[in-house]
């Protein structure tokens, strides 16, 4: 039974393949993949996802721009976003977290633990959202940082 839907965007075909195999280890995950930010945005208008998994460096719409476009759609306004980046600098992680990332995964990543990591982020975000709703229902949406 599919319980978690993930929208994955990466311009590298091989990395998409590895990611697909990695998530296939988790039957509860339904994965939708795109090779560019533009494709993802055009699909997203009619679709939905529990969590976004975005490559940062992409031609055309990069990860941040893709997230920005997705956030304009009501169904993705609060969807947790996880960035994957080969830019290893600490500063880069800070930039992405400030831009609303729930977590940042540095490439190369371990495909054997990728599914657990993403599910962990989703659970943490859900739990935090529930707490926030209890504490302050009127509080505006904010980026949730799990790391």
């Amino acid at each position, binding site marked *: 039974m599919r319980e978690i839907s993930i929208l994955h965007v990466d311009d*590298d075909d*091989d*990395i998409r393949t*590895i990611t697909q*195999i*990695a998530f296939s*280890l988790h039957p509860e995950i339904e994965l939708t993949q795109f090779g560019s930010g533009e494709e993802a945005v055009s699909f997203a208008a009619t679709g939905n996802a529990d969590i976004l998994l975005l490559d940062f*460096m992409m031609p055309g719409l990069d990860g941040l721009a893709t997230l920005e476009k997705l956030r304009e759609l009501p169904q993705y306004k609060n969807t947790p976003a996880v960035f994957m980046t*080969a*830019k*290893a*600098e*600490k*500063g880069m992680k800070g930039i992405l977290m400030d831009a609303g990332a729930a977590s940042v995964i540095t*490439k*190369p*990543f*371990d*495909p*054997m633990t990728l599914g657990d990591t993403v599910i962990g982020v989703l659970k943490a975000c859900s739990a935090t959202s529930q707490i926030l709703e209890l504490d302050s229902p009127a509080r505006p949406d904010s980026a949730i940082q799990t790391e």
Partner: protein
Amino acid sequence: MATAAVFCLVVVVGYAGYASIYGLLTGESQFRVNIQAINILAISLMMGVLIVALHRRDQILEIAVKFENLRQNSANANQWIIQSSAIIAVTDTDGFILYVNRVFEEAFDYTQDEVVGENACILYEDGKHDYQFAEVSKTTRLGDTWSGEQSLRKKDGSLILVQGTILPIFDHEGRHTKTVAIRTDVTSERTAEAGDNMTSLLRKLQDEVFIFRADNLQPKFLNDLALHRCGLKSLDGVNQPIHEIISGLDEELIVAHTQPLISGDQQVALVSLTSDDGKEYEMSTRLHRGMDEIPVYVSILRDITERRLVDEARLASVSIVSHELRTPLTSIKGSLRLLMSGVVGELPSKARDMLVIADRNSDRLLTIVNDILDYEKLQAGKMELEFAPVDLTEFVLHAIENHRGYASQHGVELGIENSHLNAIVEADNDRLMQVMSNILSNAIKFSPESGKVVISITQTANHCGVIVSDQGPGIPDELRSDVFANFSQIEPADGRRRVGTGLGMAISRRIIEEHGGTIDFVSEIGCGSDFFFTLPLKRPLETSAAIAKKRVLSRSINTQKADTNA
């Protein structure tokens, strides 16, 4: 006619030369001329020269010139001795001192009794007397006069600079019997000249030079560019401390900048500053403790804008290359991990072995990519540290946990000592772990099978440290300097090279230095090595350079108190 004229000249010169030598060597001011000796000398000379003149006319002229030189030299020497204003020493042909005058005694602090009988080489600087003395001896033995400047040693070992003329003295048969050295002390002139030259060089230096007192921070010297920055033509009448004449600096910054020099924690203090026109400067300061003088700080302010731009451009390139390499590595490592896990099907054991090799080497490649990027960041001053309290005991236990698998692969046991210490430092935990990983992984891979690597925590009043002791082959002394060098892979005492990037320890050293700490090792062949690093308990003031970097160094300067909030 010419021959007759030369005869007359030779006789006169011979007589004068004889009289001069006699006077010189007896020390009498009035020469008592032995008529018989003169006659014999004159007759001998005339006969000798006549014979030579008949056969070798060209040699007559040479002899005449030599006699004339001798006459002139001897006459001058005699005059100097009489006036006693020059430093004079008479030695035998082997350099043993026969006589020194009063001025010599004053100049070298030796008494006549102390030096007579000694060889003149005692006056020469250690290591120089062999060739200098040989040069002088060779010249005088050839009958020539040596002239030049010498650096000679006084009785107390201090040096004086002298201008000297050293000439041979011949007996009436033309044999070199003695040597006279006539010298003048030119130390003060040369020192003044050197000082003037140095000051002139400093004035025209393309870096700004500020020399100011360590006690009240008042400026003692500013070169032309430094004066220009401060809007001054000279330091006449300027009594304000240095931070009041350089806009953009304040007392807090100067104190923070110089404090590690006073405490002895650092030999050179560095701080980065930015001017209001966007230029970047680096100020490096040393503490100079001159003899009998108030200690001064010598600060050099250098425009590093271009260097920074080059560093940043290089870092940007390396960063792009790093990203471009990491992307295919993600696919390679990801594929290998999936294959090895068996999720895409079971593999024969030999195939798995090959995958382990491929995986290990892809890790190695990733380490190289990371190290090069870190190295460039450090070079460009772009490695920003995030300081937070780090409990060293927890830190070491974490490091051991991280390396347990690697240690067991090598059959090495890991242990900790002094874990009871409450050693807490302010550090960037991730970067410190990078240093620890470098040291620990080296210790493990150089250890013998069943060896033990022990990690100890140390604590003093101001510092905490970590020591990693291994039982490896040890590092030969001649390779000591290579250990922390860039791209250096040393060959240990057992001759077995281990893989590595050659950058790990160089990066570790820079990281520890950025923390205001030190990193080093002791090693004994066959007994292992102890690598250690120490960190100050409190975050060092110098590493708060990030704050200082935001300081604005204004170009529009006046002698009024600067706006410290600039």
